[in-house]
C-alpha cells in the first residue's frame, strides 16, 4: 500500500543548527495525522520542506507512492499539497475571493472575471460547509473566517493533502470545535490531513495517528487509540516532565495592583477591556488564563502605560497611576517580562550590558550628569550574567547572538534585579526548552517568596495551574471568574475560557 505522503530520512540544516535530522513521516490516505512536538522541535521546517519553501539537504519525498521533487509551492500545489499557514497568508486589502483565486484567476478575454471568482468561491464554501463572504475584504472579517479563507485557498487549487500549521493558536474554544468538525468533514470528502500541533487535547479529539519529533529527530509514530496523553507527553519532552510547583505557602499581603472598572479600546477603537476589576497582592502569583485575543495584551499594556485607558482606575501601591507614562510606571515599581521578547524585551543590536540597563541607563550609578558610566554598567552586567547563568562569551556580546532561553534570562535578570513591587510575566516560557522553563518558573516563585506581586499571563493551562495562587479567567475583556488552582481543573477552566460560568449559565 502506498502512502498519501511519505517523507524518508529528511535532513535540513541551517547555519549552526540541524532542524531536521533523518525524519521519516508516513501519512495514510484519508487520515488526520498529527505532527507532534515542542516549539522548535522542527515541525514547521519539515512541513516547509514538504511545501517546497525549503529544499532538504538529504532525503526523499513520495506523493501517492511516486517520487516527487518539490522546488517551490507551485510544485507542491501541482502535487495536490496545500498548506494552511499559522500566520495567515492573506492580503488584508483584497477581498476574500481575490485572495482565494490569486495566482489562478478566472479570466474572460484576458481580463479578470471577478463574477466567476465569487461564484466559484460560493460553490466551494457551500460544498465543504466553510462559511465565508467572498466579497468582503479580509481586514473586515473575523479570525475564524480568515482561517476558512486559508482552507478554501487550498481547496480551490484542488489539494487533497492539507497541512494545518498550529491552526488553533489564534482560535477561541468554540472556533476550535468548529475547525475540528471541518477537518473531519474534509477527511470524509477524501482529503488527507497533517496537523502540526503541540497540544495533546486536539490530537486526542481528532487524529488517527501521530508522529512525535523532538529536537529535529524522529521519536515514534503511534496510533492514537493505542496510547494515552501522559505517554505522548513524555515522548515529546524526552523524559518525565518535572514540573516546578508553586509550593511556597500562600500568605497574601497588602494590595499591590488594584484595577477598578477598567475600559480599554484597541487600535480600531473596539472596546477590548470592559469594566474589568482585578487585585493582585504582595506575596502571590495571580495567573490570568484565557484564549489569545480576549484582551490580555491590552490589559497588560494599559497597566504598563503603553496604551491609553478609556475609563477606570489603576492603582499601584495605593497610588493612582492610570494613564501614567511607561517610565513613570517603571519608576513606581513595575517590572515587565513582555510576551515578544525579541521585539519588545531586548534591543537585539545592543550588547548584553547595554540591554541590562534598558530602563535605568539614565539613573545613578549608570549615568552621572547625562554621561554614561560604561564601566559601572559592564560590572553590573557581569554580575547579573553570573547570577542568572546567562550563557554568553562576554557582556559585550550582542543580544541577537544569544539563544532564546538566554535572551529570556537577560530580560528576567534585568527585571528581577530592579526589585519591582509588581512583576508582569507575559508568556514567559513560550518557545523555550525545558531547562530554561524550569529556571524561569523558579525565579517567579522566588519573587513571590520575597513578597512581591506577580501577574502571570499564559495561554498554557499547565503553567497557570502549576504556578498560580489564584487564577483569574479573562473572557472577552472582563474577568469572568477567579478560582483557586486547588479547587479547579482543566475542564472547568476550559469552560470558563469559553465564557460559561459554573452551573452551565452562558455568560
Amino acid at each position, binding site marked *: 500500500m502506498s502512502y498519501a505522503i511519505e517523507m524518508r530520512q529528511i535532513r535540513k540544516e541551517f547555519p549552526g543548527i540541524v532542524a531536521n535530522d533523518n525524519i521519516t513521516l508516513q501519512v495514510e490516505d484519508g487520515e488526520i495525522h498529527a505532527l507532534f512536538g515542542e516549539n522548535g522541535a522542527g515541525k514547521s521546517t519539515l512541513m516547509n520542506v514538504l511545501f517546497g519553501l525549503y529544499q532538504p539537504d538529504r532525503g526523499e519525498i513520495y506523493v501517492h507512492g511516486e517520487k516527487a521533487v518539490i522546488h517551490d*509551492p507551485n510544485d507542491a500545489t501541482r502535487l495536490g499539497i496545500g498548506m494552511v499557514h499559522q500566520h495567515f497568508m492573506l492580503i488584508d486589502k483584497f477581498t476574500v475571493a481575490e485572495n482565494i483565486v490569486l495566482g489562478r484567476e478566472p479570466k474572460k478575454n484576458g*481580463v479578470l472575471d471577478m463574477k466567476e471568482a465569487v461564484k466559484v468561491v460560493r460553490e466551494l464554501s457551500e460544498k465543504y460547509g466553510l462559511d465565508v463572504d467572498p466579497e468582503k475584504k479580509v481586514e473586515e472579517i473575523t479570525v475564524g473566517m480568515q482561517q476558512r479563507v486559508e482552507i478554501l485557498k487550498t481547496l480551490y487549487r484542488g489539494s487533497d493533502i492539507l497541512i494545518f500549521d498550529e491552526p488553533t493558536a489564534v482560535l477561541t474554544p468554540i472556533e476550535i470545535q468548529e475547525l475540528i468538525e471541518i477537518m473531519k468533514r474534509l477527511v470524509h470528502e477524501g482529503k488527507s490531513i497533517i496537523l502540526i500541533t503541540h497540544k495533546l487535547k486536539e490530537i486526542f479529539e481528532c487524529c488517527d495517528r501521530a508522529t512525535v519529533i523532538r529536537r529535529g529527530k524522529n521519536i515514534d509514530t503511534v496510533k492514537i487509540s493505542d496510547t494515552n496523553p501522559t505517554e505522548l507527553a513524555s515522548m515529546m519532552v524526552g523524559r518525565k516532565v518535572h514540573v516546578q510547583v508553586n509550593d511556597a505557602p500562600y500568605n497574601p499581603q497588602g494590595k499591590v495592583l488594584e484595577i477598578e472598572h477598567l475600559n480599554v479600546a484597541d487600535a480600531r477603537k473596539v472596546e477590548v477591556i470592559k469594566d474589568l476589576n482585578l487585585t493582585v497582592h504582595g506575596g502571590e502569583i495571580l495567573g490570568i488564563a484565557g484564549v489569545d485575543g480576549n484582551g490580555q495584551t491590552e490589559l497588560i499594556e494599559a497597566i504598563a502605560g503603553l496604551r491609553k485607558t478609556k475609563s477606570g482606575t489603576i492603582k499601584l501601591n495605593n497610588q493612582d497611576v492610570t494613564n501614567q507614562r511607561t517610565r513613570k510606571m517603571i519608576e513606581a515599581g513595575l517590572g515587565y517580562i513582555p510576551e515578544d521578547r525579541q521585539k519588545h524585551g531586548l534591543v537585539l543590536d545592543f550588547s548584553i550590558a547595554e540591554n541590562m540597563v534598558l530602563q535605568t541607563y539614565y539613573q545613578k550609578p549608570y549615568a552621572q550628569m547625562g554621561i554614561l558610566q560604561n564601566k559601572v554598567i559592564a560590572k553590573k552586567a557581569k554580575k547579573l550574567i553570573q547570577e542568572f547563568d546567562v550563557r554568553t562569551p562576554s557582556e559585550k556580546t550582542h543580544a541577537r547572538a544569544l539563544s532564546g532561553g538566554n535572551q529570556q534570562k537577560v530580560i528576567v535578570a534585568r527585571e528581577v534585579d530592579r526589585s519591582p513591587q509588581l512583576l508582569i510575566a507575559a508568556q514567559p516560557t513560550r518557545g523555550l526548552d525545558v531547562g530554561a522553563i524550569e529556571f524561569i518558573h523558579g525565579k517567579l516563585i522566588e519573587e513571590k517568596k520575597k513578597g512581591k506581586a506577580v501577574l502571570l499571563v499564559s495561554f498554557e493551562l499547565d503553567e497557570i495551574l502549576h504556578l498560580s495562587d489564584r487564577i483569574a479567567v479573562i473572557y472577552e475583556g472582563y474577568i469572568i471568574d477567579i478560582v483557586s488552582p486547588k479547587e479547579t481543573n482543566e475542564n472547568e477552566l476550559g469552560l470558563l475560557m469559553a465564557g460559561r460560568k459554573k452551573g452551565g449559565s452562558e455568560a
Partner: protein
Amino acid sequence: MGTEPLFEKGEEIMSFFEILTIIIPSTLLTAAPLIFTSLGGMFSERSGIVNIGLEGLMAVGAFAAAVSTLGLEHSGLGDASPWIAILIAGAVGGLFSLIHAVVSISFRADQTVSGVALNFLAAGLTIFLVKLIFDGKGQTPYITHNIDKVDIPGLAKIPFLGPLFFQQVAYTSYIAILIAILCWFIVYKTPFGLRLRSVGEHPAAADTLGISVIKMRYIGVLLSGVLGGIGGAVYLVTITSNYNVTTIAGQGFLALAALVFGKWHPIGAMGASLFFGFAQALSITSQQIPYLDRLPSVFMLIAPYVLTLIVLTGFVGRAEAPKADGVPYIKGQR
C-alpha cells in the same frame, strides 16, 4: 474674496475665459511628463520597490530623446523624429532601471539608497556622454523638430470647450491621460495587476501561491523605467528642446510627490500631476491674472510640496503606501 467684478460685465467674463485658455493648455503641457513618470513610479511601488530614482530615469530619458531626435532629424526623418525618440527613450529608461532592480531586488540593497545612487549615476553619465558626443560641450544642440502645440482637428472648433481643451495642446498630453486610464485598467482589472499588487502588499502570501515575487518586482521596476524614460523624453521634446545638467531639475521628485499625493492610484497620480501642472502654470501666468498677481509666485511653486505634506498627515484622508513597499523579500523569512 471679491471675485464678483469678474463676472459683472461681459468683457470681464471674456478676460477670465482668456485666462483659462492660457492656463488650461499650459497645465496639460506641464502635466504630461509628470503623468507618465508618476505612473511609472506607481508600477514600481505597487510591486513593493520604492523608487526615488524617478528623477534619474527622467534625466536618462530626456538625454536619450535629445540625442536620438538629433540623430533621426539628421537622417531625414523629419516630424516623426521626436515620436520615435520617445520610444527609444522608453527603452533606454527601462534598461537603466534594471540597475535599480538588480541592486535593490537581487542584491537586497536599501531601496532608497539605490534610488539615490541611480539619480547620481544618471546625472553623471548623461553629461559625461553629452561631452563625449558633442566635443566637450556641456549641453546638446537644440532639436528642430519638437512636438508642437497644435489645434486638434475637429475638436478644436467646439464652441467654448474647443479653445479650452483642444487648441494649442500637444498630443502627448492626451496620450498621457489615455495611458493613465490604461494603467488603471491593467492594475485593477487584469490578473497581472492583481498579482502585482499582491506582491507589494504581502509578498510571502503571493509566493506561497506560486507567484514569483522577484519576477513581478523586476517587471514593476522595468515599467517604471520605461514610463520614467518616456516622461523625461516628453519633457524634452515638448518643453526644453535640449539637454543639459539643469533640464530635469526636480521633475522626477515632483512626479514622486504626485504619486504620493495621488495615493498610489493611477487615476489619482494623473489627477495629482494635472494639479501640479496647474500650479506650475499658474506660477508662470499669475502675474497676468487679476488678484493673483498680488500673491508671490513662490506660493504656487511650493504648493505641490506643501499639499503633499498635508495629504500625508492624513487630514485629507489617509494616504497609505503598499504594505510591503520598501521591504526586501527574503524567502522563508516571515
